[in-house]
């Protein structure tokens, strides 16, 4: 779990972080020394920031000769400029582009057929209710968040009749969307679990390795995507999980794998479950697309529920960013399913110790919206309809893009576009082709070839198909 900065050791400087951070020997080096050392690390080893999925040469970090990075008076002289986040940076670049035909297929935020962001009707209704309610206050939530919201979230992912819930074996804490839930879960495991290695699929969402590394876990990968078939490398997955040390943590995308859109079948999930339980591997589900993948909330929760049904333990990170369109409100939850109510209660108390020094307690607004919707039968039903509409639109975009490529006779098998599921398609395009599409066609996407189908419309599909066709025929 070394970050780039501690490669200092390779250059003969002893990194203070390998010692106990509280040893008094640290204070013997002067502040100037430490800053010079840190500066030296940046100059000698100006390697790209830790992001195993980035192949973009623009990511290389080095101080600009014209910058006042060497301003002698600043204590921050040694801090170099970080590159933009690879995923969120796509939108930054898109915004700068003046072309009228530009297309943003970068970040996974849903767009309407008109290319506009969408706030769900049920969300607007819920917000209106909240604002009209004169008894509402803005007092601190408890550290674990809004109680009602936590209960409803657990039911949503585990099923209302889940025995784990009925037996009080689940602790659920409100967190800052999926990222926050993963981070809090990771920090908890790093402190209280005996196996500090987490296995993540290859590839996975670009932020996963950073979240878990900073949480204090050591990150390894298991094979997942097969570029040859543009599908699941199931054998590789079984082999890699099979050779993981007993007790290791395994990150699983509950549905609509990001970035590939490739999900195991139910039969394959069952095999994965059996293998993991036989090796006491600890499942950590990332559920960011419940309801968004197939259109059905229950269907998309099946893998999680299968694991919980066998009585075993697991962690689940939930996000309402996509399925309720609450992106900016940062609403999510971490559930830890334990063997017993007693364990769950102790685990919850320790989760609070992780959260309090991070941000004290979570934000109320988004959670209140979610709770309002989930507990009201009419709003809930309306939500499922709006959710299915979003999922259906995406499925239709997949079909349209596939048809458009076939119509152009674009070389290659593009059936993976309609086989993959969820918001993203892993096109199989390489970074050269991607860069070409951005330059020539103003199509913005992440350099791994991932496109967000949610950013497409019937109107823009032809342009994208043209871009892909040109990229594939220009760069074999």
């Amino acid at each position: 779990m070394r970050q780039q900065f501690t490669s200092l050791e390779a250059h003969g400087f002893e990194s203070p972080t390998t010692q106990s951070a509280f040893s008094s020997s640290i204070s013997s080096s002067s502040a100037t020394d430490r800053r010079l050392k840190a500066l030296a690390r940046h100059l000698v080893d100006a390697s790209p920031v830790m992001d195993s999925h980035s192949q973009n040469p623009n990511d290389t970090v080095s101080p600009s000769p014209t910058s006042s990075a060497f301003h002698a008076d600043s204590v921050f002289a040694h801090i170099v400029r970080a590159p933009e986040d690879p995923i969120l940076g796509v939108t930054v670049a898109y915004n700068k582009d003046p072309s009228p035909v530009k297309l943003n297929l970068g970040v996974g935020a849903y767009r309407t057929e008109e290319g506009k962001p969408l706030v769900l009707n049920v969300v607007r209704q819920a917000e209106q209710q909240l604002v009209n309610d004169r008894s509402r206050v803005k007092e601190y939530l408890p550290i674990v968040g809004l109680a009602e919201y936590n209960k409803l979230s657990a039911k949503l992912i585990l099923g209302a009749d889940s025995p784990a819930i009925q037996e009080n074996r689940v602790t659920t804490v409100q967190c800052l969307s999926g990222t926050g839930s993963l981070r809090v879960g990771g920090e908890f495991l790093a402190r209280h679990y005996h196996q500090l290695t987490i296995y993540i699929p290859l590839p996975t969402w670009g932020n996963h390795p950073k979240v878990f590394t900073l949480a204090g876990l050591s990150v390894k990968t298991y094979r997942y995507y097969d570029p040859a078939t543009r599908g699941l490398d199931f054998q590789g997955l079984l082999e890699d999980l099979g050779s993981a040390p007993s007790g290791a943590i395994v990150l699983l995308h509950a549905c609509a794998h990001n970035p590939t859109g490739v999900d195991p079948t139910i039969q394959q999930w069952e095999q994965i479950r059996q293998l993991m339980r036989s090796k006491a591997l600890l499942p950590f589900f990332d559920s960011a697309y419940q309801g968004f993948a197939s259109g059905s909330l229950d269907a998309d929760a099946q893998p999680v529920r299968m694991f919980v049904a066998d009585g075993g333990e697991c962690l689940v990170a939930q996000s309402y960013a996509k399925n309720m369109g609450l992106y900016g409100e940062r609403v999510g939850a971490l559930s830890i399913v334990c063997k017993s109510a007693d364990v769950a209660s102790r685990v919850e108390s320790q989760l609070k110790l992780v959260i309090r020094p991070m941000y004290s307690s979570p934000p109320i607004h988004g959670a209140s919206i979610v709770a309002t919707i989930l507990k009201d039968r009419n709003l809930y039903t309306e939500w499922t309809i709006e959710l299915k509409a979003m999922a259906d639109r995406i499925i239709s975009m997949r079909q349209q893009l596939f048809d458009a490529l076939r119509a152009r006779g674009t070389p290659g098998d593009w059936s993976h576009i309609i086989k993959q599921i969820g918001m993203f398609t892993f096109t199989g395009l390489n970074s050269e082709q991607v860069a070409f599409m951005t330059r020539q066609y103003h199509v913005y996407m992440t350099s791994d070839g991932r496109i967000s189908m949610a950013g497409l419309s019937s109107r823009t599909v032809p342009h994208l198909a043209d871009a892909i066709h040109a990229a594939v025929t220009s760069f074999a």
Partner: protein
Amino acid sequence: MSHLIASLNDLDPLSKVLTGFDLFRHSALFINKRNNHSKLICNHRPSMTSTSTMLSLASASLTASLSVHENLKGRLKLGGGSLSFKKEKANPFINTKSFSRISMVAAIKVSRFEGVTMAPPDPILGVSEAFKADNDEKKLNLGVGAYRTEELQPYVLNVVKKAENLMVERGENKEYLPIEGLAAFNKVTAELLFGASNPVIKEQRVATVQGLSGTGSLRLAAALIERYFPGAKVLISSPTWGNHKNIFNDARVPWSEYRYYDPKTVGLDFDGMIADIKAAPEGSFVLLHGCAHNPTGIDPTPEQWEKIADVIQEKNHIPFFDVAYQGFASGSLDADAGSVRLFAARGMELLVAQSYSKNLGLYAERIGAINVVCTSADAATRVKSQLKRLARPMYSNPPIHGAKIVANVVGDPTLFNEWKAEMEMMAGRIKNVRQKLYDSLTAKDKSGKDWSFILEQIGMFSFTGLNKVQSDNMTNKWHVYMTKDGRISLAGLSLAKCEYLADAIIDSFHNVS
């Protein structure tokens, strides 16, 4: 083994650590080595966590040896004695082929988190929980620093309600904010702190990143310190807000204390403060409360601030302000930013964490910011980019709602003026309550004790000088809920309850040791 763990919980902290260590060392079943980040060695937190870590280490090996538990139950001597497995007959199952099959079976039966111990309640937030559970009608919650009206009700500011109505009417979208937060918010928050015409703003030398209120902003800054100033210490006041230590511990930033509160004078130990800041290694970060020091309510005078700045400059320290009460201390937003502006005016580089929890009553929205004042715009750009790199793996981007409220209120001249008036009203109520409490104490206390510190302290809190036992008496006998360090939140006190509180304080002070 769970039997073992339950009994271990009864041991004193040191024994827990040692016996846990014994288990660790002697367990023939322990498989995994911890890396350097092991909590076994360095942990400022009560040993509960390290015990829990070690116990979970020990209990992990349990999953491979459930039968060891069966053999040892009842045979081990507990209570400080050695728990070495060496004394027991070697478990016949450990070395047999059926070992792995047992581990499969055991894995299903026992929780992986069996060794996790129950954490104690948060010393501050736990007070409100205890208060809720109390059914006595005289109960008074002076725990957490949340403003209450004279009727002791929570207060949502009128400007906040107006802003929220506007936001709903406009029907804005809920797209992700940039990692650094809402640009409009970042702009107005830096201007509020430094003044819009301040050179640091005009020269674009401030890196401002929206954070999760004060806590989240402090945490981002701590993460920046850990990464870019490895080994640098943060100096925190003694006492300080209880969560400061937790934040730096979790961020793995070493800290030490500088003298601050003088119990003899119930005032500032200024000489001690200066001496301790001077004695610290060059290039330390000095955590300063911008105004309304929490928990003491004792602030340096302007002259003292100058001297503090002098010694910080002399030692090349970096000032790190926590500004959670701008506007709440004196009632004036500008006056309360005086200390920060004094340091900035000297051309110093500094960090400032801001919170809108109290002054805009946005507690639950978690809205604040971390500001880093640099000597150049270029440095500010670079620092901001690295703050973003720390925020992304923590929560990706910050919540939008509170940021929009602040941007709408602070950025609109009409609402801003209305806010200033509400701010003065809130600060005014607290000043009145201070006066009434002082008057009640002076009238009722026949001992001649000088209670004037209540009037001299500033902000939401008063440091009463009551110790833990006396504070417990306040709660147990008088149903007055406060933190064990003797801090009371005047924001939770009404004029009507001042006399009752005075009785409680006088009783606790004189009759309880």
